[in-house]
């Protein structure tokens, strides 16, 4: 129901700048995920949007209205906190009703809204309980319920799943996805450091690092066409193998020679003038497969991790970091064994000396 426009938004605490000029437009009804490592500024950015922190530079618009100076309650937002932030002395019902009650909502309307939200989240039977009598997952649902009752234009989630155990995290993640489906007109902004949550929930992901946006795009765009080394390493698990390389010939495809590897063709648009320059070569573990020929890389297996559905092989290719290959779960691989691995040209990535990706020609289009 609401679109957001951030223009050159900055935040600093005294002389410490934590956000450097964020430009971002969020469409109405979109599910946006802010993701990044600890301290990248993702939670701060969310708190700026919520109005819990002052914006020190730039403007934030909700539905075309600049809201920099508007208190949180007037922005039409609702927020779900990492720690749930339920009022410990109030019942579930009162927790959900508290804000509206003070806003002089009529009793019937209030009751209807609380019960509808409780119904939707299946917490009706807990309405009379105190938060301390609920499990973590139930508490988080109450927190979500409290947000729903406010009927917000923008729904903000601050790492809502990080206090839950693994199984519950998956279940609640699915519930949030369903919630978005049901409330498809409500814009949702979700902060997480968990890339699985980001990939599964987001319409678009905003990758933040060091207070700057690294890339904005759909999950598949980020996976297949990362703009830079940071996004390439951040999305995907295990992370993309990164190897210093040299451009042997530009063009489409280009020829690249990774350090300690064989020259290989990469489906990327590299200008001819780049020939001979230093670059970085990237290949995802899941794109590597064993080969009988010389392959792209070869070396001795340092360590084998058998995860059931896949086998992770750590291969010594003479670099500080071993090359990681994600192989078939049935692979009969032993430590110390010599192995050669290769990958298709359209699966490879190459970045220039500044870590900026050369545009990929085939995979990028697919995304």
């Amino acid at each position, binding site marked *: 129901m609401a679109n957001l426009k951030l223009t050159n938004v900055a935040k600093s605490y005294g002389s410490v700048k934590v956000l450097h000029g964020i430009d971002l437009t969020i469409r109405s009804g979109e599910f946006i995920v802010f993701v990044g490592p600890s301290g990248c500024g993702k939670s701060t950015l969310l708190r700026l949007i*919520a*109005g*819990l922190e002052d914006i020190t530079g730039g403007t934030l618009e909700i539905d075309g209205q600049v809201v920099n100076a508007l*208190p*949180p*309650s*007037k922005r039409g*937002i*609702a*927020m779900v*906190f990492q*720690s749930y*932030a*339920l*009022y*410990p*002395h109030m019942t579930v019902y009162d927790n959900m009703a*508290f*804000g509206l009650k*003070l*806003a002089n909502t009529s009793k019937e309307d209030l009751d209807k809204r609380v019960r509808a939200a409780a119904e939707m989240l299946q917490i009706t039977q807990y309405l009379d309980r*105190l938060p301390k009598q609920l499990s973590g997952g139930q508490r988080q649902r109450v927190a979500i319920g*409290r947000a729903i009752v*406010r009927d917000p234009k923008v729904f903000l989630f601050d790492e809502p799943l990080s206090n839950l155990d693994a199984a519950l995290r998956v279940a609640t993640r699915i519930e949030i996805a369903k919630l978005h489906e049901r409330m498809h007109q409500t814009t949702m902004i979700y902060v997480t450091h968990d890339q699985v949550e980001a990939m599964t929930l987001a319409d678009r992901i905003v990758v933040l690092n060091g207070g700057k946006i690294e890339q904005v795009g759909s999950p598949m765009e980020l996976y297949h066409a990362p703009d830079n080394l940071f996004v390439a390493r951040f999305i995907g698990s295990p992370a993309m193998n990164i190897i210093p390389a040299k451009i042997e010939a530009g063009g489409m495809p280009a020829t690249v020679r990774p350090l300690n590897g064989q020259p290989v063709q990469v489906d990327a648009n590299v200008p001819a003038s780049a020939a001979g320059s230093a670059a970085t070569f990237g290949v995802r573990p899941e794109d590597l497969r064993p080969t009988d020929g010389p392959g792209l890389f070869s070396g001795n297996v340092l360590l084998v991790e058998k995860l059931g559905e896949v086998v992770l092989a750590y291969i010594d290719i003479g670099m500080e970091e071993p090359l990681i290959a994600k192989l078939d779960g049935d692979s009969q691989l032993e430590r110390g064994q010599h192995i050669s691995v290769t990958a298709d040209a359209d699966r490879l990535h190459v970045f220039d000396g500044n870590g900026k990706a050369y545009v990929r020609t085939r995979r990028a289009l697919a995304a």
Partner: protein
Amino acid sequence: MAGPVSPHSELGRQRILAAWWFLAPMLVVLAAAAGWPLLKTIYFSFTDATLNNLSGAQWVGILNYYEWLDYGDGTGEAFGLLADEQWWAAVYNTVRFTLISVTLETLFGLVIALVLNAEFKGRGLVRAAVLVPWAIPTIVSAKMWAWMMHDQFGILNDMFLRLGLISAPIAWTASPDTAMVAVLIVDVWKTTPFMALLILAGLQLVPGDIYEAAKIDGVHPVKVFFKITLPLIRPAILVAVIFRALDAMRVFDLIYVLTPNNDRTRTMSVFAQENLFQFDKFAYGSAASTLLFVVIALMVILTIKLGRMDLEGNG
């Protein structure tokens, strides 16, 4: 955390035994330092003991508490503590002092705790400074205030005169009208930091994120205080009030130093001390001490019971 100890298993028995060994030194000290004197005092209150003749005290039953002297003509006169007007005046003074001082200290303590809980520069320094009155021994602060309230040389009279608030010097500690006020001022000055500290500890246990949730809910700050902060720190306030009230009920040193021999400020403890050591009515003083003990014990039981019920009712 250890689970409940079953007394029926060998391991459970060992743990219970170990617990008793660890508790034993404390129990011995407690019995010697608190239990024995208490029992002895209760015993003396049923005798005719005097300071000069403690060992030869004779059992007199409840005569120290109540005695009806029949004049034989249908009239008579009641004696003993329960019929002593001065004792009941002391009870009244004590209750009045306790109610007013604890109320004021709770209110001021709450305000100070709220201020100290906010983020500002030099907060650590202010927190330390606030505690200074509490750190000064009561005798010292009572003497200090006695000088400040002195009718001829006191700074208080001087300031009030210069400001034109009073037209003639007031004998703060001696005048019957102001003696209690003087005692209350000093006690509030001295003990508010203690209240503030206990309430501050309670405030710091309130998670900060619920205040942010309240901001998003658009709750007015005043409502936040009454609907969120106050209910959540009530247990801490209750504990602080109980501590302070018990302390106030047995107030002695402040009054003994600041307003000696004043009918308006004589509390139960002062009454007991006077009888025990000044009037050579040791048994009578013991009876007063015993009653004071009973009153305080009842108060503790009542407060805890009421507090529990209240907590469950609203918590």
